[in-house]
């Protein structure tokens, strides 16, 4: 019975510690609000909120609190992909690495992938966005968020993101690179006061959706 005494004693400690950390995480997750007022800046007509940090593969990360970050795709990526019909996200509990392909999007039988801007354990998935992929285009920085990630070392991984002072330049370069492929797009942007059209890909006849997204999303 000594065996049971020892195992049960240590199991009690381990379970208490585990439940306490789960509960703390659950409280933290529940207390975060996806929609918040972000200070919006525009680069070539695309919204680029200043509070967010960006991965060069056009995903963003928002530090909700210590070790808890929200993740999504930026407006440029959402507009470039346009009318996606379905997407796949990693399940809660899965550990994702920075730069790992974790998002899959589908359009007309083609697949596009995007990478994680951070490293950590997925704690929540935006099921609303899964049900209604159009949210990504409507509100990529609000209701179109994709994951909540528990990132134990969010400071270290943030070093690999686009430096804050270079975000405008980085986004401008991406937009110009896209417009070089189809100059008509620049005109389409200007038509309604500088905002991009809903579906940029639709204005790029002859392009492969998968190849185009691979180039811009670094996949």
């Amino acid at each position, binding site marked *: *019975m*000594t*065996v*049971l*005494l*020892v*195992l049960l*004693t*240590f*199991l009690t400690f*381990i379970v208490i*510690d585990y439940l*306490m*950390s789960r509960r*703390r995480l659950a*409280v*933290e997750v529940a207390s975060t609000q996806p929609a918040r007022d972000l200070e919006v800046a525009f680069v070539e007509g695309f919204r680029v909120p200043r509070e967010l940090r960006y991965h060069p593969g056009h995903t963003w990360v928002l530090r909700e609190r*210590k*070790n808890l970050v929200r993740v999504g795709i930026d407006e440029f990526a959402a507009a470039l992909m346009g009318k996606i019909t379905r997407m796949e996200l990693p399940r809660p*509990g*899965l*550990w994702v*690495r920075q730069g790992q392909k974790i998002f899959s999007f589908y359009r007309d039988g083609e697949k596009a992938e995007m990478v994680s801007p951070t*490293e950590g*354990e997925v704690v929540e998935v935006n099921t609303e966005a899964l049900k209604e992929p159009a949210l990504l285009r409507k509100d990529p920085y609000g209701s179109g968020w994709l994951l909540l990630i528990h990132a*134990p*070392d969010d400071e*270290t*991984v943030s070093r690999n993101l686009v430096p804050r002072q270079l975000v405008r330049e980085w986004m401008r370069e991406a937009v110009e690179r896209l417009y070089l492929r189809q100059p008509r797009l620049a005109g389409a942007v200007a038509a309604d006061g500088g905002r991009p059209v809903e579906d940029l890909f639709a204005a790029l006849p002859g392009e492969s959706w998968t190849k185009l997204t691979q180039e811009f999303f670094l996949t």
Partner: protein
Amino acid sequence: MKFAWPRTFWRSVFLLVLAAGVYATWIRITGGLGASTHLSDEFPWGLWIGFDVLCGVGLAAGGFTLAAGVHIFNIRRYEPIVRPAILTAFLGYLLVIVALLYDLGRPERIWHPLVMWNPRSVMFEVAWCVTLYTTVLFFEVFPLVLERLGHRRPLAWMHRAMIPLVVAGVILSTLHQSSLGSLYLIVPEKLHPLWYTPWLPLLFFVSAISVGLAMTIFESWHSSKAFGHQLELPLLAGLGRLLAVVLLIYLTLRFRDLERRGVLGQAVEPAPETWLFWLEIGLTALPMFLLFRASTRRRPRSLYWCAVMVIFGFVAHRLNVSVTGMEAASGATYFPKWTEISVTLAIVALGFAAFRLAAKYLPVFEPAREAAEGPARPEVALAAAD
């Protein structure tokens, strides 16, 4: 401050456990083993040997397993988790020695085996190996202190001596991890057939490797949470796969041995030993099956719980050998006294606290700074000057 209560909770638990341990120590010192334990002439080894020593030494095996992998087999990618594993091993061995002081009738004579040699005794070999290996671990941990203090020259010397030290550590560990099993080879009539086997040294050694890997995963998980370090999941997943293979080898040996000795039938007899035997096997086999699945290894929580099961299976085996398997033949029923439990808990709590302090003040989670950092620069400068 809203979420500070878990830390406060664990600090309170630590202080309570420590207070009970101090009081139990007082009883042990003033009243002796009779007043502080439920041990007897019929049953002389209980929780302090079964858990604190037999399990403690095994649980600290991550140090030699990983050090051998990185420094001898040159699997450098595991380097980021070597330092915490070696620190865990060092603290583990120190605490094993502390625990032994409680169990020895005359603790002030703990040094006797070092000068009063009895080379025919397994215990003599264990005493020497544990002493030497603890010294080796000290020299493996000491570079952390030198790095912290910025003493580069002695650090360079230490790094040069690292490979011989690691080789010595692996040899010493192999010797005494198996010798702990050899201790029970002298009780073939007393130890239950489900656990007595001439293969005990081999089983103890293989199980020490498995629990060393499991402890590395366990420690990495808690360090990641406590210190906000990145979880080295790809590395831990690799360890998980290796762990599954080691567990398979262990279970194959275990059942091959039972079948070879013709005692497999006793594993289905209705007896308390049978239940505890299957508990031990279940806690080893279940994580093995789970760890062979890539999906388990990709999830930190699954990996963590598998490591916990492996550790529990290991503890169950060591306690079954040292306590459960000895009860029937001794004619005595042993259940630890509260003082024994308090001392054990206090020792474990001290281990956690010491690790936390060391991690706070020493560069445990930083990659090893090349000792050549100091001398290398002048060499480059000289080359340039030439």
